[in-house]
């Protein structure tokens, strides 16, 4: 049992982190990580007077569309802005204010913006793409919201990679794997967020490199399929990659990376889609930078797995806390005694 921090202290720290930004972004290590439970908990404890919630796709639906198991509904405090389908508006008519039809859609259906008048358990729906999510967030802020909670996803197309998003709340659930697998993934994420940002970046959306002070555009965006060409740039002062580096490409270019002395600049740390071993090799042998950086505000752990591979909650909390002492790790279902 972790006794170094009491739950009120954690709540205070979390509140501080939430209020420091306009956006609170939640991402899970895997599907069914427990993001909705964390979202409900944060909404309950953060106490903004006009918060808004945005999700990727659907959230709070009765059953998981893939697994078929029941899922928690989103619990909105009064005065929370949310987007949904028209059917949700009809179902909750007495308890909401309808702001109007938005210019956004999801699953080929129009999205509506509403605000809860009472605490409400409901389904929320949001656009699937990062650009639309950010545009929707701006739209809701214009309508009067003062903080946006975004239920996102953790991949290179995720809201987490958007330049406006500076901090993440990460949910590490047993659904992802055993303790070693979770630790390994967290290690990887931890080493990704270590990558320093590059000052004054000025890059196009193509791969480019600098040779004798002159920036040259490669006329292609992807590393995959161009590995051989890139390995000819061993004298470049820097190489900029706007897209992902995967293990397949890395293994083809391993020799090049191990000998390259210039700077390697990526658009975002999450675009380094490498296993822990390859990532460590890359970090060890090259000078890595990113255009956009990101921090982990806190990690919420969840011992429950819908696939039945649950983890011992006490062991999970204690192990992660000991491995990542500098991170704020908490469990919303933890009992803390005085």
């Amino acid at each position: 049992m972790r006794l170094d921090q009491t739950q009120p202290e954690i709540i205070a720290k979390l509140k501080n982190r939430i209020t420091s930004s306009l956006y609170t972004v939640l991402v899970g290590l895997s599907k069914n990580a427990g993001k909705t439970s964390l979202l409900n908990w944060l909404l309950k404890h953060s106490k903004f007077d006009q918060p808004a919630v945005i999700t990727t796709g659907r959230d709070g639906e009765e059953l998981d569309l893939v697994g078929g198991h029941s899922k928690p509904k989103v619990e909105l405090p009064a005065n929370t802005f949310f987007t949904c389908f028209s059917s949700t508006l009809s179902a909750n008519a007495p308890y909401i204010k309808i702001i109007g039809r938005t210019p956004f859609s999801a699953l080929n259906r129009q999205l509506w913006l509403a605000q809860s008048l009472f605490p409400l358990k409901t389904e929320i729906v949001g656009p699937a793409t990062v650009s639309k999510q950010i545009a929707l967030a701006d739209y809701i802020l214009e309508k009067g919201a003062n903080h946006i909670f975004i239920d996102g996803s953790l991949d290179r197309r995720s809201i987490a990679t958007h330049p406006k998003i500076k901090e993440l709340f990460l949910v590490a659930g047993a659904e992802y794997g055993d303790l070693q697998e979770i630790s390994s993934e967290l290690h990887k994420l931890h080493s990704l967020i270590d990558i320093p940002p590059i000052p004054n970046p000025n890059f196009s959306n193509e791969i480019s490199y600098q040779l004798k002070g002159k920036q040259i555009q490669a006329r292609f965006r992807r590393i995959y399929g161009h590995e051989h060409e890139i390995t000819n740039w061993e004298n470049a002062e820097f190489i900029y990659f706007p897209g992902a580096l995967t293990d397949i490409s890395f293994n083809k270019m391993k020799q090049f990376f191990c000998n390259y002395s210039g700077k390697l600049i990526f658009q975002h740390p999450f675009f380094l889609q490498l296993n822990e071993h390859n990532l460590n090799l890359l970090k060890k042998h090259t000078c890595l930078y990113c255009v956009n950086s990101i921090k982990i505000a806190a990690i919420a752990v969840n011992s429950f797995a819908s696939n039945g591979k649950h983890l011992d909650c006490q062991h999970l909390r204690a192990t992660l806390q000991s491995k990542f002492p500098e991170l704020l790790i908490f469990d919303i279902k933890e009992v803390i005694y005085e």
Partner: protein
Amino acid sequence: MNKNTFEALNLADILTEIKPLSLGKQWQHRPYSPQHKQKLQNYFEKLKLLLNSLEKNPQLSTQLSGQLVHLNNIKNTLNKLEKIQILQVFEVQEIKNLLYFYLKIKKILQKNKLSIIQLPKVEKLFSFLDKEDQNSPVFHLSNCYSAKYAKLLQEYEQTTKKLAQLRKENLQKAASQLNMTKAEPQIVVSRLDKKQIEKLTNSESYYLEAENFANYTFQIRKTEAILELENIQNTLQTAIEKESSKILEKISKVISVYEEELSTIFSELTKLDMLLAKAEFCRKHNCCVPNITRKLSLKQARNLPLEWELSKNNIALQPVDINLQNKVNIITGTNMAGKTTVLKTIGQIVYLANCGIPVPCQKADLPLVEFIFFSGYQQSRMDLSSFASEVVEINEVLSEPGSGLVLIDEFARGTNPEEGEAFSKTVLEVFLEKESLVVAATHFSAPAQIKKAAHFRIKGIKADNYAKLQQLPNLQNRLAELHKFMDYSLKQVAVDSPPPKAALIIAEILGIDRKIIKKAKDFLNDK
């Protein structure tokens, strides 16, 4: 208009420049028929009024577009009203949204003394939907709609608050009983933590909800008071839902009284969106509102797609004056002089005007036609040769009743010149007996003999400038200069004036081996 003509005239490129903000996006551009000449003239009068107001008040465009942009297509909701069905809550919001922005637009139009659309009176309906005087498009089922509903909502609010308080107290009590810093409704304990499990299992505050091989999940035990309040809350919810349905029925009935006004507002705002889009198109592309007359007279006419294309290379398009007083009009000119461009320009401008759209001219008088037809666009049927396609097309248009605009680009150029020339002349003569306005471009000499036709020639390049062009070093330079030396304006010429012949000179400028040109010239001299 067939697809071929629509494509040949590059109309899609022009129409995409007309950008409605909301309701007008559903609008399909359709030409007015000659029977509706008065309607079109009235429409153009409204467009002129709007253009004048936009000129006088530079803020007007932003003021109107600022409101129009918020409108949504609510045709389905309006259809529901027609059938007197009960509206859903979001449909009521859609109507309130329409009314809110309509009333703002009404104020702007009245302030600017602009009577270009009908403005029905719906202020009372808006007030009815804005029960709490919020003056916004936001809608909710206000407790002002029914005293019973207000009472139920008040009770629900009190119960919810009380319930939250009881739950909070219950958690506080649990925390205090178990010496916890803070209790949560659900807690998870490791299966190995026997002491905690025992403590929680034996506590009055929690019960074991679930267990698995790793953990035990405990849930806060609800007190009798909480359970009772939850029951009350559920009962209230059922009553509220019932009452809200009644309110929606009442609101729907009130709205349905205004069904006609709402339909008018919807269609009038759609018209306004289109009028504003066309006015902005007019201002952006220096167009004018045309006059509908029997003859066609265009001053400084421009082919917009060509103008945009040329501007990419910093070349200014030369506008042309086109004055057609006869039924059949024949245009001749050297190669590259712009005969096809003139035909297309006429087609574009007549189509735009017939659709109620300003035209790219300084001044335009033109007729309302029943159809527009362009012959000579090389995207014809795959199963026919170019000549065969032309013949099929001309045959179709000859059998078309009514007065149209027929644009014929070098008819019969794809067959042997002797027969083609005779055929071309005869077809044009047949058109003299028809009602349509015909403009034909040709290189043949025979059509020049048609007495009842008007004959035009594109001025082209002066003879001494050909020599200057031939002296320029490379093809690129010659092409660039060719455009500068070319005079694209039309002049009327007498009947029997032979078409200009400059094919060999143009070919030479375009870089054909001089030996070939010389041989061709020798051949002509021998003939």
